[in-house]
């Protein structure tokens, strides 16, 4: 297997974690978080700063990233979680945009647009390049697997049933005495922390991060993974993330064959394709490839469609 | 003469029929009350005639013209105008604007408005207020005035007294009766306050479980000894 495939799979693994985290927030609980890249970026930079500037090992960086993601998640959630879905979407999008401005402008901390170089590797040093690449892939895959198993367990548990009830109609659980806000807060914070963890993995994999790594296209890809895979279905998110990576990376080869187009046009064409597929999926197959099973969804109400 | 003629009407939502084979006539200048227990299908029958609920079978004609194939807007244009029970005014518009939009596409908006104010003089007092800020009774009056802007032949009124104080219930029903007599309208009214409605209506139908179980002169229906029992669904 060549290095390129290993690279693609590693990126796909990072997207799997992001998609699973978003699926917990949106698919299961109905929280519209457009700030995926904000949390992803905060995790990446927090981990980088912890390891490079403060000299912590990778695990320390990962912990700092998770903490930073969680704390930011609490802040954003307290601002907007009580409000309707639209408001949460607006606030989270604004948050992501603001986070990117901070990455860009606080050069002393983040290196600004020149980029932030991260030397700390998540695996032991002194291995050959190939082995290191494989080891990083293994680590990312393990992280994705753990996230998947934990979230699927959670989705099947009574806790997951409450989340779905909140998603379908947050009046019902609150009359049952469940505090809807606390559940939404928990889910939002856990999801944000997981996105930040994905950011840490990503940062130590690519080793140079710039604010451009954390822009809207990334958020669109993650959303697409969740929707195409099937909102509410954890396996769907894994499948969706893999599919989106294949589609995105694969379109690189297809469009590269069109020689009349310049690089800018090719990149634009790929994004047009991605956005169009997302819109068409929502219109014609809103439940995704792997719909959330009816058995798991609350009995009387149909599962949510995005 | 007969204005509305309904024969073996089946109606409901989607494919579920709630109204099962109803015959009913409303003549010009006549007020007909539809009474019965909750869930009997009174509102559904009214909405089916208005085009808001689905007609699943049977016929409905207005002045001999078939209503069934027409969408709601066309039925209103043909003269069968519906006044919904709830959310029957545009709250953010002034009363005058509410009246004006209700005569969309007509050239004689001002003339129609004057006619309606002449029929319901109370409207004149709050013509330029925001409709959402009016009292419950005033809002129902505006809702009624909006229906009248279409110059209906047949007025289909769904519980116009819902939420009104007992005093206003009588007023509202008196106004409807007067409209039937003076403006020569046919009025089909669904009313929870059955006795108050029967005092004013010419004829009445008692609907239970989607069927007409009693029909006749309104005043006489109210006198029948088992009238109260009908409302608990015990069909005779």
């Amino acid at each position, binding site marked *: 297997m060549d290095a390129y495939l290993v690279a693609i799979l590693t990126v796909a693994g990072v997207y799997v974690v992001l998609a699973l985290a978003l699926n917990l927030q949106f698919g299961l609980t109905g929280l*519209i978080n457009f700030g995926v890249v904000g949390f992803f970026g905060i995790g990446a930079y927090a981990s980088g700063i912890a390891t490079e500037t403060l000299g912590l090992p990778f695990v320390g960086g990962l912990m700092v990233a998770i903490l930073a993601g969680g704390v930011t998640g609490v802040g954003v959630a307290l*601002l907007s979680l009580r*409000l*309707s*879905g*639209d*408001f949460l*979407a*607006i*606030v989270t*999008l*604004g948050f992501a*945009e*603001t986070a990117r*401005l901070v990455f860009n*402008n606080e050069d002393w901390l983040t290196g600004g647009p020149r980029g932030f170089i991260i030397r700390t590797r998540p695996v032991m040093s002194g291995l050959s390049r190939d082995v290191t690449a494989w080891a990083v892939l293994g680590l990312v895959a393990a992280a994705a697997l753990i996230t998947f198993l934990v979230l699927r367990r959670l989705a099947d548990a009574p806790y997951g049933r409450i989340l779905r009830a909140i998603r379908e109609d947050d009046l019902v659980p609150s009359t049952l005495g469940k505090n809807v806000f606390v559940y939404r807060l928990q889910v939002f914070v856990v999801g944000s922390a997981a996105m930040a963890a994905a950011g840490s993995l990503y940062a130590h994999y690519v080793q140079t991060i710039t604010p451009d790594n954390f822009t*809207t*296209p990334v958020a*669109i890809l993650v*959303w697409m993974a969740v*929707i195409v895979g099937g909102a509410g279905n954890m396996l769907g998110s894994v499948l969706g993330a893999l599919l989106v990576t294949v589609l995105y990376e694969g379109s690189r080869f297809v469009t590269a064959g069109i020689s009349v187009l*310049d690089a*800018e*046009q090719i990149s*634009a*064409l790929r*994004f*047009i394709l991605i*956005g*169009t597929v*997302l*819109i068409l999926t*929502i*219109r014609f197959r*809103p439940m995704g490839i792997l719909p959330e099973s009816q058995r798991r969804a609350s009995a009387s109400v149909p599962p949510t*469609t*995005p | 003469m007969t204005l509305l003629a309904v024969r073996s009407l089946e109606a409901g939502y989607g494919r579920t029929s709630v109204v099962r084979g109803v015959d009913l006539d409303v003549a010009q200048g006549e007020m007909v009350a539809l009474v019965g227990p909750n869930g009997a299908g009174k509102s559904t029958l009214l909405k089916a005639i*208005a085009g808001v609920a689905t007609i699943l079978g049977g016929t409905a004609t207005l002045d001999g013209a078939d209503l069934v194939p027409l969408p*709601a*807007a066309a039925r*209103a*244009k043909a003269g069968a105008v*519906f006044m*919904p029970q709830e*959310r*029957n*005014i*545009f*709250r*953010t*518009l002034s009363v005058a*604007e*509410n009246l*004006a*939009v*209700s005569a*969309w*596409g007509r050239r004689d908006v001002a003339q129609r408005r004057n006619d309606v104010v002449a029929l319901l003089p109370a409207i004149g007092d709050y013509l330029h207020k925001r409709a959402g800020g009016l009292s419950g009774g005033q809002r129902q009056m505006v809702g009624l005035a*909006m229906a009248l802007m*279409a110059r209906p032949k047949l007025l289909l009124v769904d519980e116009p007294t819902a939420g009104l104080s007992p005093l206003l219930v009588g007023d509202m029903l008196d106004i409807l009766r007067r409209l039937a007599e003076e403006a020569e309208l046919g009025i089909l009214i669904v009313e929870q306050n059955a006795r108050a409605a029967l005092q004013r209506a010419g004829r009445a139908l008692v609907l239970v479980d989607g069927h007409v179980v009693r029909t006749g002169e309104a005043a006489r229906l109210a006198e029948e000894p088992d009238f109260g029992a009908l409302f608990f669904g015990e069909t005779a």
Partner: protein
Amino acid sequence: MQMLVDALASAAIIAPAAIGFTLIYTLFRYANFAAGGFVTVGAFAAWTLNAFFGLPIWLAGFGAMAAGALAFGLCDRLVFRPLRGRSGGTLLLVSIALSFVIENIIRFCFGAQIRGFDLPLTGPIEIAGVRVTRETLAVVAASAAATLSVGLLLTATPVGRALRAVADNESLAQIRGLPVPRIEAVGVLIAGALFGLSGTLIGLDLTIDPNLNWAVTIPIIAAAIVGGLGSPLGAAIGAFGIGLAEEATATFLTPTYKGAVGFAAIALVLILRPQGLLGDKVDRK
């Protein structure tokens, strides 16, 4: 005083789009994040007509309004109309995806480089010690004219009344015989034209590039939210508030965080009015 003038200028740029956003929100009850995309369409349409075909800028501005209306009208027909009745969240997600598609169509056609309109060089004029460029005056005048026209249209014409009626209570509008789909289409075209106008105004004041999309979306939505998401006048006032906050940030804090003002404004509104200005949830479909 200089700051006030600058604030007025940035307010004038986003006001038409904020009004368009509000109009769409009241008609269909979803937050259309593609607003910035249509603004970018307008900006590039104006650039094409002005810098490429050499038309005078005022004519290019009308062209941009037509392009914005056409683009939104088309997208509404193809994308949003088939999804009417789906939840606000779904439409919002679709609008973001659409915005992304529009941005990249523009990038595909025009490339990513920064472009400027072909404007006659004129020096700033000084009025009572405040420096104002002729472009700024034109931007403010055009924006004010558009705001007034839309306000007049909504309050004093039958179509405007019908638009407000449909926005207020669509099912009643249907019962009362209003041609709801046609009225909605009129609303979409007006909003699209307003987006196109904002695009032109941006080009008059600054340079344009496809990234404009996200840079303007947040201020537009922030202005609409601060303005209460109800009336065009509110949106215009909201735009002025956002413009003022942006200029104050640039003057007293740092110009690099001008872009975060919209977010901060939304956050502030949420803290001050936690129930949200979007109105109560119960009333929404």
